[in-house]
């Protein structure tokens, strides 16, 4: 018995950490290698693009980055920022409100409501693009930011509502009850207790929503027709000319478009605090 405990102890101190590092490195390699290839391709001169060896560009060139940065591509990035940010803010706030109701409050018909929210995202976007297009047109929203944000919200709301409902459900009622005992109204409990506790879920949902809105193509392409409102994904598709697909430029644009997202995550991730702490339960 003692021997087994000692072995388990030794296991925990040596083997597990080593295995952990190996597993982590392998996973990271899987995740990063394709992106690394993207970066390498973006630095290759055009006439080396279809050739292997060499793996690395000889010599590396910044021409593709110049092509993107000194073009109107920045407009597309700005448009994406506006649309994605608005979509995220509205989705997360509306979604959090709905999720709190579904997760913590005694309303009836929770399951049908949840299924209702999900129902819209069960239709392939292509099958609703024409009626949606007509709707956007008749509402005068063609080629505007709202014309994109509104359809995007209806597709990111299900994600927000479902994910946040899970988080709010997990929140022990005792905490909310304690707040109620102290005189907090329902909304007060929502705002002052539930939201802070659900912060990991809120920021995670926010990041995922932002990226989903950032990456959407079909509606962005169909509901806009000028660089004034077209987003980054549409801009990327415009890089092709004739039959020619400029791999180098596309990879450079992809790097330019992805890295800011990573930076945003880096900045906001410190707000993804560890969840319910002992303090909250005790107090």
């Amino acid at each position, binding site marked *: 018995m003692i021997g087994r405990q000692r072995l388990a102890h030794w296991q925990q101190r040596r083997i597990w950490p080593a295995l952990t590092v190996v597993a982590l490195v392998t996973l990271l390699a899987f*995740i990063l290698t394709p992106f690394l290839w993207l970066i390498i391709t973006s630095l290759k001169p055009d006439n080396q693009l279809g050739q292997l060896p060499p793996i690395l560009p000889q010599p590396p060139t910044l021409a593709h980055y110049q092509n993107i940065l000194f073009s109107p591509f920045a407009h597309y990035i700005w448009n994406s920022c506006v649309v994605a940010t608005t979509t995220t803010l509205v989705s997360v706030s509306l979604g959090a409100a*709905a999720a709190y109701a579904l997760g913590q409050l005694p309303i009836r018909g929770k399951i049908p409501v949840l299924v209702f929210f999900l129902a819209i995202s069960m239709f392939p976007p292509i*099958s609703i693009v024409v009626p949606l297009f007509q*709707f956007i047109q008749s509402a005068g929203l063609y080629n505007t930011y709202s014309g994109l944000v509104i359809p995007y919200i209806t597709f990111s709301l299900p994600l927000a509502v479902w994910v946040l409902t899970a988080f709010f459900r997990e929140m022990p009622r005792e905490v909310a009850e304690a707040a109620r005992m102290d005189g907090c109204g329902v909304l007060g409990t929502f705002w002052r207790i539930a939201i802070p506790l659900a912060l990991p879920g809120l920021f995670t949902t926010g990041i995922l929503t932002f990226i989903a809105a950032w*990456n959407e193509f079909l509606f962005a392409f169909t509901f806009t027709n000028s660089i004034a409102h077209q987003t980054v994904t549409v801009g990327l598709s415009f890089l092709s000319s004739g039959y020619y697909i400029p791999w180098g430029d596309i990879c450079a644009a992809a790097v330019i478009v*992805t890295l800011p997202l990573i930076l945003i995550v880096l900045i906001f991730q410190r707000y993804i605090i560890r969840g319910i702490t002992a303090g909250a339960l005790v107090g």
Partner: protein
Amino acid sequence: MNQSQSPVGASPQSAAPLASRMKRRPTWRGKEERIVGYLLLLPAVILVCAVTVFPLLRTFQVSFTNQVLAEQTNAYIGLQNYHLLTQDFFFKKAYENTWTFSLWSLAGETVLGLLLALLMNRSWRFRGWLRAVVLIPWAVPDIVSARLWTWIYDGTYGVLNFVVQSLHISSQKVNWLGDPQLALHALIIADVWKTTPFMALLLLAGLQSIPAPLYEAAAVDGASGLTAFRVITLPLLTPVLVIAMLMRFLGAFQIFTLIFASTEGGPAGSTETMSTYTYKTMFSATQFGYGAAMAVVLFATLLLVTIATLAVFGRRLNQA
């Protein structure tokens, strides 16, 4: 406050004897909570209704017609489209491919995502960086990811073939995206790459919601890591896990850009999925009626899956 009132929402078992009488009549606080609950729910519901009800109903309606835009036909034909679907060999193949793709992709991203989340949950110094770096595949736009993997998998100048041949795993170049036996699986791997971060991030957030004291108590009791995982982590993670898997299943089932930007459903229809086939039917062939019927079948499938998931896991999800 009145101590004798039972906390609203408490299950009968935990109620005080006096409260069991109270439970039958909703308390004022209960009513207030219910009303506020509906009010909190309303904006989201109204917005979704306003924008989506018309397109959804329209799609249903069109599925009962023989609308083909290029022929200007538009007559009601009842369930004929659905009948035709049951005889459509390529539709059935696409349906099958979609299930294969979704299940494998989901399995891959869940396993890898969970592994990644568990690894990232430890108190690494670089956890912030890890979280951001891990998100890269999810952050890359769909179209870029599809093109990137097409570039990697290319049968004549793709880097994967270069690696495979250099390591002498194969002497010939492998026809990743041109071989009907390989293409779908190659794309599954591409999808797992893209979506693992989504799972990892959601599961990480879920893991972080599990109170640390629980693990500390388990350690004190001498439980091993695996036991703790089985007894604490898995049960408490289940709500987030189930929801993440459901959302990802719905997403995988509707996969479009990855397929269309790489193989367009080929070769030999081996990568044709519901979405690509519906797209081709509605827009390439302008058969709006037939395509709408496909969309409805897709919708019905996903609805059934959702309801089944809720039926099986509903109680677990409802536990506070």
